[in-house]
């Protein structure tokens, strides 16, 4: 398949991008609002073309553990779910972080807590970037704001996961998963051969050839001194990721007196609010973290020297705002605006809150 331009949903773009990336396996369990990912894969039947395995598991718990099994073979494997299902996957994610396994997990998040709602939400921010499962670990987190980025982040997520032997997550929400946009799908890449995997992932459990020591993929280490060493190694890796992999986008930030900081669908809405504010003569820019972890703290600190205040816009009760405050060391005011429980704000509401903050901070 060559490069193609199509009109489709964000969820469908994930599925097509996964096939075209040369993904070896997808393991999932249906949950709204992301079921189109597995539905599209089943319809496409990639096992007949690229040889990709697609399997509907009996639960999210099982699906993430299938991903563990595939990842430990050095394969490009992924799963997707939405918030309640992602909670169930936390056990497996923690084990994969502990066993240093690369994999891609997609969360098309919805409102909680509990069964909550099927409408969009960004209330899984803490769960994703602060841990989620047990133990000291980090999850590389990408926040797409368009159908195009849903597709692009599949390759980006896999590449980062394999660069650092760490699970990566695409944290989208119901808006990005369900909306339809034009998307450029990348050309088909071949799946890795077993020889390539044995060379590039020498730790993979693909059977022990004569002359090599057996490979054991585990997160277990009962000797506390060695377990501490493991943890120190993980932390070093996380610092490296923080150093090298931060991604963000700045819109009209050059002359800005105020910043809106928003990710994913809320960055799209805030972009409209910024345009409207500019028409009113408010000098505001949009700062959009693309990686939520590693968080673009350094750049925000730099920008905070030139601006008067920041408004975060989030589909939650104020989660990323904590990281923004930490980033700018509280040297400028940082306010939050958000809607909860699946309600999506209009650009007018965001603008209104921007005006309010500006009045307070003038």
């Amino acid at each position, binding site marked *: 398949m060559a490069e193609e331009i199509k009109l489709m949903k964000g969820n469908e773009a994930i599925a097509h991008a996964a096939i075209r990336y040369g993904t*070896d*396996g997808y*393991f999932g369990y249906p949950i709204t609002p992301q079921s189109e990912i597995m539905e599209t894969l089943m319809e496409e039947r990639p096992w007949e073309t690229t040889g990709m*395995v697609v*399997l509907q*598991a*009996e*639960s999210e*718990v*099982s*699906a993430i*553990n*299938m*991903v*563990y*099994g*595939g990842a*430990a*073979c050095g*394969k490009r*494997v992924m799963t997707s779910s939405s918030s309640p299902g992602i909670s169930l996957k936390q*056990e*497996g994610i923690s*084990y994969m972080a502990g*066993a240093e396994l690369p994999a891609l997990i997609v969360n098309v998040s919805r409102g909680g807590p509990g069964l909550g709602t099927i409408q969009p939400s960004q209330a899984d921010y803490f769960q994703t970037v602060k841990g989620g499962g047990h133990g000291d670990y980090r999850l590389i987190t990408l926040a797409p704001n368009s159908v195009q980025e849903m597709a692009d982040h599949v390759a980006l997520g896999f590449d980062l996961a394999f660069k650092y032997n760490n699970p990566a997550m695409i944290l989208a929400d119901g808006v990005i998963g369900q909306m339809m946009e034009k998307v450029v799908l990348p050309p088909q890449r071949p799946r890795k051969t*077993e020889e390539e995997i044995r060379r590039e992932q020498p730790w993979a*459990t*693909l*059977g*022990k*050839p*004569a002359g090599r020591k*057996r*490979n*054991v*993929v*585990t*997160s*277990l280490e009962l000797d506390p001194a060695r377990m501490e060493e493991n943890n120190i190694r993980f932390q070093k890796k996380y610092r490296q990721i923080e150093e090298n992999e931060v991604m963000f986008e700045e819109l009209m930030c050059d002359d800005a007196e105020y910043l809106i900081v928003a990710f994913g669908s809320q960055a799209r809405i805030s972009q409209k609010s910024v345009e409207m504010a500019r028409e009113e003569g408010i000098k505001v820019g949009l700062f959009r973290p693309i990686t939520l972890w590693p968080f673009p703290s350094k750049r925000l600190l730099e920008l905070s020297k030139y601006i008067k205040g920041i408004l975060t816009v989030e589909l939650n009760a104020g989660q990323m705002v904590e990281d923004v405050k930490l980033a700018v060391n509280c040297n400028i005011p940082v306010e939050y605006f958000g809607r909860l429980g699946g309600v999506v704000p209009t650009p007018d509401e965001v603008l209104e809150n921007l005006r309010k903050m500006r009045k307070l901070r003038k």
Partner: protein
Amino acid sequence: MEPKEIIKPENLVYERPRLMLDAQMHYCPGCSHGVIHQLIAEVIDEMEMEEKTIGVAPVGCAVFAYNYIDIDWQEAAHGRAPALATAIKRLNPDKMVFTYQGDGDLAAIGTAETIHACNRGENIVIVFVNNAIYGMTGGQMAPTTLLDMPTATCPYGRNVELNGYPLKISDLLALLDGTCLVTRQAVHTAAAVRRAKKMLRKAFENSMAKKGTSIVEFVSTCASGWKMTPDAANKWMVENMFQKYPLGDLKNI
């Protein structure tokens, strides 16, 4: 016979299987795990499949199985081994894949993974060690603990009202269309060991012949958990465990 004679290679009747690593085992005296490990190592070796075999270790006493058998291993979260094995086999259909699980792992926390892997007919082998107790955590009640049998969490004996009945999970798995072999074995006598090895080999052959899921249950002792000598544990197993979990094939097609 003089010792010099005895150690001649032509007089060798038994040795450490080639795939068993020269490591000191953490298993207690009288435990069945060591013999079952040995059988797995021998079967893989005899089938000349060591370069294509991937084992999945459980949580429980056999968590360190990967320290004893010289093949590639993955260590699963508690109960999830059949999910790992499903993906390993589906992504690598030419490999030989097995899980090694205890009663708590397979029949309590991992019931869903076990039943659904078997129901899909995954071409894997499940080695199921049933000693009716949680050994690793210090002797708590298992789903397979016998009625009136005392454990750390049913110190006055397993009581139906409180704890329900011993779970005959293999009988249940034999009902599933995805399984081709469900057999119950033991390793308490030389004859039993030979029979068990034969069935284990059949199970591994089934997996490579794409016949579906094979389950080899080993009714086993846990002398430490049962608070018995190894000899008394073997006798207690024959008298009590075999009543509830009779040996033989539940399904063999």
